[in-house]
């Protein structure tokens, strides 16, 4: 059983839930940017939540199947077609040997997740099948897909066809997006006016938005408390002695354009960070298109943990509904 890639879309990669444990060597978590959607797609076709599927951004791939199987597409609203016939999103549908899966244009969101019964069976690298292109690691030959690739598929368990995720359990961000942020890290480097304007201003996703990080523009420039820069930190007030970067941390080089690090993050560097997007909101970022109006909302740790509990409850509801 295999999938033939007839067209790669824009940037389509093999992803699962990621590769924890190697960030101290600069190898990031990787994995689906919208993990909820990835889990849902897998559960729909009867896979383990952590099976490998495809993540495609903005433009869908064109795929031909060599055997009968079951497929589900979740995440962004980008209608799938099998030999030209439209298929419902967030729902498992059959594909027959020789049929071709294509996609219409993106209607909302940014990334679709394509799960196939049995999962994409590329070799496991450091505990994961996720693609880390900078390190040429994991995925299909360590890189995004290209026309002519043939993806091996594992054995499915024959379940799934016709399953669907109920509307209330499907999730896409609604513009303007609110991203909840716990201030911290080097937050106290900011002048009071900057601490206020960062949360008060409306920002927009910049075109430089990918799996490594999402850049934002449109808010006022942030100013810093003056200081003699510490030895080794570099001369710009936004510089620090190179440190690790948390996933979701927000760095603002030069005080101008905030960058939120995501699943393929660089593991460290010399820019101050003002805080971190809470874990419950990280999946949403993966569904944001350039120009999406965005506000950052200040929360406390208790609020962050409560939001995480809500997300966990939603995931439990998804599991229950598909079991």
């Amino acid at each position: 059983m295999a999938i033939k890639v007839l067209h790669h879309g824009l940037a389509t990669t093999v992803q699962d839930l990621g590769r924890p444990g190697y960030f101290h060597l600069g190898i990031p978590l990787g994995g689906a940017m919208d993990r909820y959607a990835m889990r849902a797609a897998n559960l729909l076709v009867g896979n383990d939540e952590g099976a490998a599927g495809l993540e495609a951004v903005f433009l869908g791939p064109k795929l031909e199947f060599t055997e009968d199987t079951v497929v589900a597409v979740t995440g962004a609203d980008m209608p799938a077609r099998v030999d030209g016939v439209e298929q419902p999103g967030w729902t498992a549908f059959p594909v027959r040997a020789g049929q071709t899966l294509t996609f219409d244009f993106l209607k909302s969101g940014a990334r679709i997740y394509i799960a196939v019964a049995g999962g994409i069976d590329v070799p496991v690298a450091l505990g994961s099948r996720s693609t880390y292109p900078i390190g040429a690691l994991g995925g299909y030959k360590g890189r995004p897909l290209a026309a002519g690739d043939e993806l091996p598929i594992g054995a499915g368990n024959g379940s799934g066809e016709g399953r669907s995720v109920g509307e209330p359990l499907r999730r896409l961000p609604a513009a303007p997006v609110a991203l909840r942020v716990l201030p911290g890290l080097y937050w106290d480097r900011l002048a009071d006016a900057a601490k206020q304007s960062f949360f008060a201003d409306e920002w927009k996703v910049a075109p430089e938005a990918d799996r490594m990080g999402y850049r934002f523009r449109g808010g006022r420039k942030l100013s810093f408390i003056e200081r003699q820069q510490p030895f080794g930190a570099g001369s710009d007030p936004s510089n620090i002695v190179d440190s690790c970067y948390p996933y979701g941390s927000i760095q603002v080089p030069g005080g101008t354009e905030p960058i939120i690090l995501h699943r393929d993050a660089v593991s460290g560097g010399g820019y101050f960070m003002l805080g971190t997007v809470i874990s419950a909101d990280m999946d949403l970022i993966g569904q944001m298109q350039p120009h999406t109006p965005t506000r950052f909302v200040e929360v406390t740790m208790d609020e962050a943990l409560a939001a995480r509990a809500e997300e966990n409850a939603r995931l439990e509801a998804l599991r229950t509904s598909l079991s």
Partner: protein
Amino acid sequence: MPTRYTFGGDEHLFVECSDEMSLEAFFKSLSMANGVKESGIKGITEICPANASFQIKFDPDLIKPDDVLREVRAIEGAAERAEPVIRTRIVEIPVFYNDPWTHETLMRFRERHQEPSGTDLDYATRINGYVDVDDFVAAHSGSPWFVSMVGFVAGLPFMYQMVERQRQIQVPKYLRPRTDTPRLTVGHGGCFGCIYSVRGAGGYQMFGITPMPIFDPTQTTSYLRNFMVFFRPGDVVKFKPIDRDAYDQAVEDVDKGRFSPPVREVSFDLREFQKDITGYNTRLEGMINGH
């Protein structure tokens, strides 16, 4: 300054031992990171030592953030009382300084540089007060360096020169980052040296290139078969200048699986080092040669 604890969202604890770089701060952060690793605190999924700080990733479904904080704080006291001694490795890295590949690259990005009329080596030589490039290379390769952090991208070592602060080489990064850097370029930015583990963007000044791969996801390089990343935080590095012939020979040896970097296990004692930096470094270097 006292150690500063701050949360990176609900999944990370960030511990800054000092806001300025020093060997003491590096030592404390590495000791604490190692202490956290040994403690086996439940729910911790990543421990990342950095230059003067470190970061822990945890699963808040398994352990409350405040409990992580409490347990890590308890380790700080033990780390401070511990002997400032680490068991580590010293490794000799051959470097072809002023090589044609980084030279070609730096010429391509000259308009992004502080001094478009010279090379990166010329610039670093001048602003650090060395007589000429040979004099600068002698300083760069004349003392060992601590790998104070591995990261940015896969397997890239940040290195801190093991000399008195006033003797440390310092250079600003490029005015605007390059979009290309040859794989295995030996670079420098601020007070940190690095080796680019993969080809890609970069902002550090480029001084030379090593023939020795330090990251190999295919794990076919003879000394990277067990693990694809060569460096670990705490490694001690000594650069050895080589010429074009030795570089070509080393590249061939790597390809044929015959290359193995000289590596020795060593015990590093910060107090002894600080008493006599030059003498201690000489003894460390002697160990590479089996003395």
